[in-house]
C-alpha cells in the first residue's frame, strides 16, 4: 500500500487489520460519486429492492415489472436502492491544548492514531478521505479523495502537524459546514474546549447540511481527576494567562465546572444527533474505534 514503506508512529498494522474486519458505515444516506457501501438518497441498480413506482412515459421499458402488470393490468416500474461511496472529512484539532499529556501520548498523538486508522479504513473500502487541521483557523486542509496514493499525503500531514495556537473550532466547523459538499461523514477529533452552546450551533449547522457528524472527545485522566496536591501555576497551552491556584481549594469548583460542561455537552450532542464518543487517553484507541465502528454497523440505514 505504501510505496516508500515508511513506518508511521501512529499506525499499527496489526490493529488496522483487526479493525478492517468491521466496515465503516454512514448513519444516513451519503452522496458519493461512485458506487460504494453506503446508502444513497437516489435509486440505483443494486440488488436491494426499494419500491414500485407507476410507469411514466420515458421510463426504460426494461425496468417494467411484467409480473405485476399480469396481476394488476397496470404498469409498474421496479426500483432498487443505490449504493454509493462517502466523503469522510477528518477534522483534527491541532490547537495548543491538544499537546497536553505525557510525552509521546499526548492528545494529538492519540488523535493521529484515530485519524490515521479511520482514514485508512475509509480509503480501503473505497471512500474518499480528507483532512482538516484546525487551530486558530483552518490551518491545513486536504480535500477528500479516494485515491489510495492520497493516503500518503494525509499521513504526511498527520505526521507534520504540531499543537499550536488557540482553538477556533467553532468558526472552522461553520466554515466546513458550508464548504464541504452535502451528505458527508465528518469526524471531529478534539478536546472540545469550546463553550457547548457554540458547539451546539456548529453541530446544528452540520446537521442542516445533512452531514453525518461523529465526534471523538479526547480527555486526559488528570484533567478529569485534577488530583494535584501542591499549589500549582497552570500555564495555558494556548497562550492565555497563567493561573496560580491551590488545588485543594479550587478542586471542588473545578469539578463543578467540568461536570456542568460535560452535562451541557451531552445535551448538545443529543439534540444534534452527533455520534459522540468521550475518550480518555489511557483507553486503547483500537477499542475506541471498534466501539465506534460496531455502533455504526448496528445503526446502518438510520436516517
Amino acid at each position, binding site marked *: 500500500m505504501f510505496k516508500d514503506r515508511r513506518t508511521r508512529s501512529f499506525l499499527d498494522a496489526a490493529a488496522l487489520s483487526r479493525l478492517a474486519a468491521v466496515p465503516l458505515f454512514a448513519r444516513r444516506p451519503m452522496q458519493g460519486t461512485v458506487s460504494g457501501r453506503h446508502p444513497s438518497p437516489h435509486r440505483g441498480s443494486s440488488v436491494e429492492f426499494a419500491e414500485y413506482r407507476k410507469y411514466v412515459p420515458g421510463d426504460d421499458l426494461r425496468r417494467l415489472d411484467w409480473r405485476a402488470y399480469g396481476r394488476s393490468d397496470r404498469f409498474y416500474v421496479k426500483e432498487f436502492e443505490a449504493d454509493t461511496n462517502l466523503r469522510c472529512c477528518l477534522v483534527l484539532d491541532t490547537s*495548543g*491544548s*491538544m*499537546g*497536553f499529556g505525557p510525552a509521546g501520548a499526548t*492528545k494529538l498523538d492519540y488523535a493521529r492514531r484515530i485519524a490515521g486508522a479511520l482514514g485508512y479504513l475509509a480509503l480501503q473500502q473505497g471512500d474518499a478521505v480528507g483532512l482538516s487541521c484546525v487551530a486558530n483557523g483552518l490551518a491545513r486542509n486536504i480535500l477528500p479523495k479516494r485515491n489510495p496514493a492520497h493516503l500518503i499525503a494525509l499521513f504526511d500531514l498527520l505526521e507534520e502537524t504540531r499543537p499550536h495556537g488557540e482553538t477556533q473550532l467553532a468558526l472552522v466547523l461553520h466554515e466546513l459546514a458550508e464548504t464541504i459538499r452535502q451528505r458527508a461523514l465528518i469526524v471531529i477529533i478534539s*478536546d472540545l*474546549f469550546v*463553550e457547548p452552546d457554540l458547539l451546539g450551533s456548529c453541530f446544528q449547522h452540520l446537521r442542516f447540511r445533512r452531514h453525518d457528524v461523529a465526534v471523538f472527545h479526547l480527555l*486526559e485522566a488528570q*484533567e*478529569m*481527576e*485534577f*488530583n*494535584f496536591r*501542591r*499549589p*500549582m*501555576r*497552570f*500555564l*495555558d*497551552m*494556548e497562550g*492565555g494567562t497563567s*493561573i*496560580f*491556584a*491551590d488545588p*485543594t*481549594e*479550587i*478542586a*471542588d*469548583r*473545578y*469539578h*463543578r*465546572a*467540568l*461536570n*456542568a*460542561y*460535560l452535562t451541557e455537552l451531552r445535551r448538545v450532542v443529543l439534540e444534534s444527533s452527533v455520534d459522540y464518543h468521550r475518550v480518555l487517553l489511557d483507553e486503547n484507541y483500537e477499542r475506541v474505534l471498534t466501539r465506534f465502528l460496531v455502533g455504526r454497523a448496528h445503526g446502518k440505514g438510520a436516517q
Partner: protein
Amino acid sequence: MSFLQPWLLAALPLVALPIIIHLINQRRYQTVRWGAMMFLLTANRMARGFARLRQYLIMAARMLAIAGLVFAVSRPLASGWLGLAAGGRPDTTIIVLDRSPSMQQKGIGGGDSKLATGVHQLAQTLATLKSAHWILIDSVTKKPVQLDSPEALLKSPAAEPTSAASDLPGLLEAAYEYTQANKSGRTDIWICSDLRQNDWNPRSGRWQALRESLLSLRQGVRINLLAYPEAAEGNFSVRVSDVRRVQNGPAADLVLSVRLAREGEDQSRASIPLHFEIDGARTEVMVEMDKSPYELKDYRIPLESKQPRSWGKVTIPADLNPADNDFYFAFEKPVPRHAIVVVEDNQVARSLQLAAAITPDPGITCSAEVVAAEQVANVEWEKVSLLLWQGPLPEGEAARHVQEFIKRGGYAIFLPPKVPGDREFLAARWKSWTDSASKDALVANWRGDQDLLANTQSGAQLPVGQLQIHRYCQLAGDFTPLAGLQGGSPLLARSTQNHSGAYFLATTTSPADSSLATDGVVLYVLVQRAMAAGAASLGTIRQLAAGEALPANLPDSWQRLAGPEDALSGAYPVHRGVYLAGDQLLAINRPMEEDQAPILDDGRVADLFAGLNFIRVDHRAGHIGILIEEIWRPFLFAMIVALIVEAALCLPRYVAKAGSPS
C-alpha cells in the same frame, strides 16, 4: 489561668506554624502546562464559599491542635488565681496560719471548720505547686517551722485550732524576717485567715513598715491570701463578764454575769439555754435574748461545795462556731484588800484612807493603813493590794520595795508632792505645779472604755468631767494618759514600764487642789478599782485570755482540769480550759476581741497589700472543691478533637467527584 510549667508557654508561637508552612507551601508551587484552562477560569469565577471556609477551618484546627498541646504540657491550673505560679516554682513557701477561735467557724450545714478547710486546701494546693522549702508560721508561736512537705501541715500540731487571737502584722513580720535572714530565693507567702479585724489590726502603723520591708526584698515576694470572709450569721457567743463568790451566812453563792451576743443583723428574740457546770453540778437557765448583746446580770447560784475556791464553765448549744460556745471561770473566797497610804499632807491622807477602806461589798474586807515614807521597808507587801503615794517619788530602798510590789502585780497611784523635786520613778517625774487661777481647769477627756476610769457595767460614765482641778502638777516622762485637762496636761496617766499597775494622778485630794475628795465618786471608784485589780494578784485564781502574757511567777508545768483534751501540754496557755499551775487556778478563755469581731472589707484588705504582688481568693468553710487543679486533660482532648476535625476537613472529597463525570 495559671500554669505549673509556664516557661513552656514560650512555645506558643508554634501556633503560627501551620500558617508559616502554608505560606512556604505557597512559595514552593509547581508549574504545569495545562490545557483545560476553561474549567480553571470558570472555577475562579465561582463563589469560593465553603472551600475557602474549609481552608480557614483546617488552618484553625491545626493551630488549635498545637495550642492545645502547648497548653497541655504547660500544666494549666483551674483557678481564678490569675498569674499564680507565673514565675515557676518558688524557692520558699511560707504558710501564715491564723489559728484564732473565729477560724473554727463551720460552714452552713456543718462540715469542716474554716481552719480545717484552709489547711486541707493549702496542703493540696501547695503539693501541686511545689517548692524547695516549706515554712509554717502559726499565729501562736509566731516562729518559722520547716515542714517536710505540704502534707505535713495536716498532721502538724501547729495547725490545730487555739483560743488565742492572731496578730497578722506580727506573723508577716516574722515571715519577712525569715526571708531576710535566710536569704531565700523567690518566696511565696500564703496567708490563711478569716479577715477578722481584731486579728488583722488594720489601723496599726506596722502595716506601712511591713509593706516597705517586703517591697525592699530583692528576691521578690508574692502574697497569696486564702480568705474565709464568710460571717457567722446567727452565731451565738457566751462570755462570763463577772464572777464572784459571795458568802451567804454559812453557805456561799456564786454570782455570775453572763454576756450573750449574736453575730449579724438578726435582732429577733431567741431562747438560749445556759448550762452551768460548777464543781460537777449542772444548772440550766433559759434566757430570753431580746437584743444583742444581752447580759444576764448577777445570776446567783448556790454553791454546794465548801471549798474556798473552785472553777466552772458555762455552755450554750452548738452553733456555727463551737469555739465561742463555752466559757471557763474560776472563783475563790475574796481576798482581803489592803491599801498602804504614804502621804506628806494629812488632809490628803484622810480622804485617801477613806476611799480605800470603805468596802464596796459586805463580803469583801477592805482596810487602809497610813505609813510614813521612812517605814515603807517594814510593810508586809505580800498582803498589800494598793499603794497610794503622795509625796516625793520613792528612791533608794523604798523605791526598790515599791518596784517589787508593782512587779508582783500590785497597784500604785502616785500623787504629786507639795514641792516637786527632780526624782524620777518608773521613767516619770513631777515637774511643777500650775495654778488655774482665772478659771478652774476642767477635765477635757478621759478613757471611758478601759482602765480605772472606764464606764460602769451599766454603761454610765463616771462623773470625771464634773471634777474641778484648781491646781495640778505637770508630769514628764513615759506614760499613757488616761485623762487629760484642757490645755493638754495629763490628769491621770499610767506608766508604760513593764505593763505595771503604776498610775500618776496630777493633783491631790486636798480641797485646795481639786474636788476629788468633795466629789468623791471618781476618787472612790478609782481607788477601789485599783485595789480590786491589785488584790487579784494576791489571790490564787487567774482569769486569763488565751495567748496573753502570763504572770511572771507561774510554774512551767500545768495540770489540765477542764478543757479540750487534744491540746498539747505545752500549748495549754493558748487553749481554753481550767488549769492548775502550782497553787494558782487558771481559767483561760478566748480574748474578748474575738467575740463579734467585724470582718475586714475587700478594699481595706487590698489597701493593706497595696503595691505588693498580692493575690486573693475567697473560699468557704466546708467547701470540698479543689482550690487548684491541673486541667491538662481538657486541653489534650481539645487537641484530639482539633486533629479529628482537621482530618475530617482534609478528606479528599473531590476524589470521589472526579470519578463522577462519565
